Structure formats: C-alpha cells, structure tokens
C-alpha cells in the first residue's frame, strides 16, 4: 500500500512537477535520511540537517533520472552517500572524521557517546556500511547498489567492521 502510494507520488513529481507530492515524499523519507547522516557525522544535528536538505534538493533535480530499477529508498540513500562523500572531499576531513574526536558533534548523552565512539572505530566506508546494514536494515545487495561496489567487497568490509566493533564492545564490557 505504502509502495503504491510512493509510486503515485513519484509519478506526480516526475510528470507534473507536483510540489505537494514532493513535500509528501520528503516528509516520508526525512527521518531515515537524517538518521543515516546523524550516524555518519558523529551525532552532529546541524550538519545532519544541512546534508539531508541538500540530499532532497539533489533528489528534486535528479528525480527524472530514477528509472525504478532499484527501490526509491535505495536511490535516495545513493544520493545521500554521494552528498556525504562530496562534503568530506570539500572539507578535506577524511582523516579528521576517521581518527580524531569531533568537537563539533553535539554529543549530549551517554548512549549517543557510546555509539559515536563505537562507530569511530571504523573507516568512513565501514561506518556507512554498518549504518545501512544494522541501523537502516538494508540488504547487502542494496548497500552494494548504494555504494556502487561489488557485493563481495561490501561483505568483506562488513566482516572487518563486525570484528572491530565486537572487539570494541567486549573491551568496554558490553556482552
């Protein structure tokens, strides 16, 4: 039912440039996109909202290129992933994000600090894959489609990330 409604909204946006339909699509998908960015940016809410807005604006411009070969949310995550990669490139933050504690992050409670520290054990690609797999509950084939990488590569990244996280959690007394 929801998928049929989503297709109807997409058709209205593509054919009629219907802004109300686009607003409904944004409303439906913004929690997932913002959650994705929140885990990528170590919990920085302002940066998350900026990147999520940019994602939806890029979606508006590229929505006619969506052919329906993959799911719409997969297409949206691909745009979000590319937006984040562009952000990292522009700010030249690859090393900073991966290794240093991020002072700009609005870490405001123990739970958040906990998951942020856990995700910091991972490289940028591993963090994205773990977020999509465990938090957004996407299949490996979807993640391969989003990151434009072979499924085998995703599985090996996931396996490495799983080992790193399990070790980190056990060392910190989480069983």
């Amino acid at each position: 039912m929801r998928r049929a409604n989503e297709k109807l909204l997409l058709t209205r946006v593509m054919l009629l440039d219907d802004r109300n339909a686009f607003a409904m699509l944004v409303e439906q998908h913004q929690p997932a996109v913002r959650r994705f960015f929140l885990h990528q940016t170590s919990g920085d809410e302002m940066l998350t909202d900026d990147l999520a807005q940019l994602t939806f604006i890029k979606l508006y411009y590229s929505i006619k290129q969506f052919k329906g070969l993959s799911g719409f949310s997969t297409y949206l995550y691909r745009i979000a992933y590319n937006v984040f990669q562009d952000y990292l490139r522009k700010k030249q933050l690859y090393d900073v994000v991966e290794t240093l504690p991020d002072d700009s992050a609005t870490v405001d409670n123990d739970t958040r600090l906990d998951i942020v520290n856990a995700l910091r054990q991972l490289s940028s690609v591993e963090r994205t894959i773990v977020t999509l797999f465990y938090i957004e509950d996407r299949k490996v084939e979807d993640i391969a489609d989003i990151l434009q990488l072979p499924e085998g590569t995703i599985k090996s990244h996931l396996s490495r990330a799983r080992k790193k996280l399990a070790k980190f959690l056990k060392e910190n007394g989480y069983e």
Partner: protein
Amino acid sequence: MNDKIQHNNEEDLLRKYFTETKIEPPSNVWFTKRVMHKLPHRFSSVERNIMTVVTIISVVMCGILLYYSTDYILPHAENKITLSLLCIYVTIISTMVLVLLQIIRLIKTYF
C-alpha cells in the same frame, strides 16, 4: 564450525547493540518546509501568460524593426555616416539576441 559460532555471536551482539543504542533524529517540523523553500522558483500560470504576451509583442516589434531597417535605412545607407550605421546594426542585432533569449526562457518554463 567455531568460526561460524563466533560469527553468529558477533552478529547477535551487534544487532542487540544497535537496536538499543541507535540515535533517532529529533523531530524537526520545519525540515520539509525548508527543503521546499530551497527548490527552484516555478512560474505560475499568470506569470507564464504575461511572459508569453511580452515575448509575442517583442517578436512583432523586432519584425517591424527588421522590416523598417531593410526597407528604409539600408537603401539610404549612403546618406548615413559610418558610426550611425554601426549603431543601427548593433541595436538591431542586440534586440534580436534579447528576443531570442526571451523565447528560449519562455520555452523552458513549459517544461
């Protein structure tokens, strides 16, 4: 066998961990409105109609100017000084380019 058990244990541990600790974004009622405000301006039907009428008037005036220039100014070119002729040519060409740009802009609003 041991590897598989270890893999399953790690998988269960991480599933449980992320279910318990994942961060949910705080509700932001302004988010969708902000996105909608940043989308490109779309012409309303009134704006588009005004633009169409203005473009048609410009095309007609351009045609009259072209007719006048070829039928009146150019046959009497020997009576004009070079600078005046140059000004006339520049004016005609600029007007035509502007009208052409306006036509392209108008066509874009329909798609």
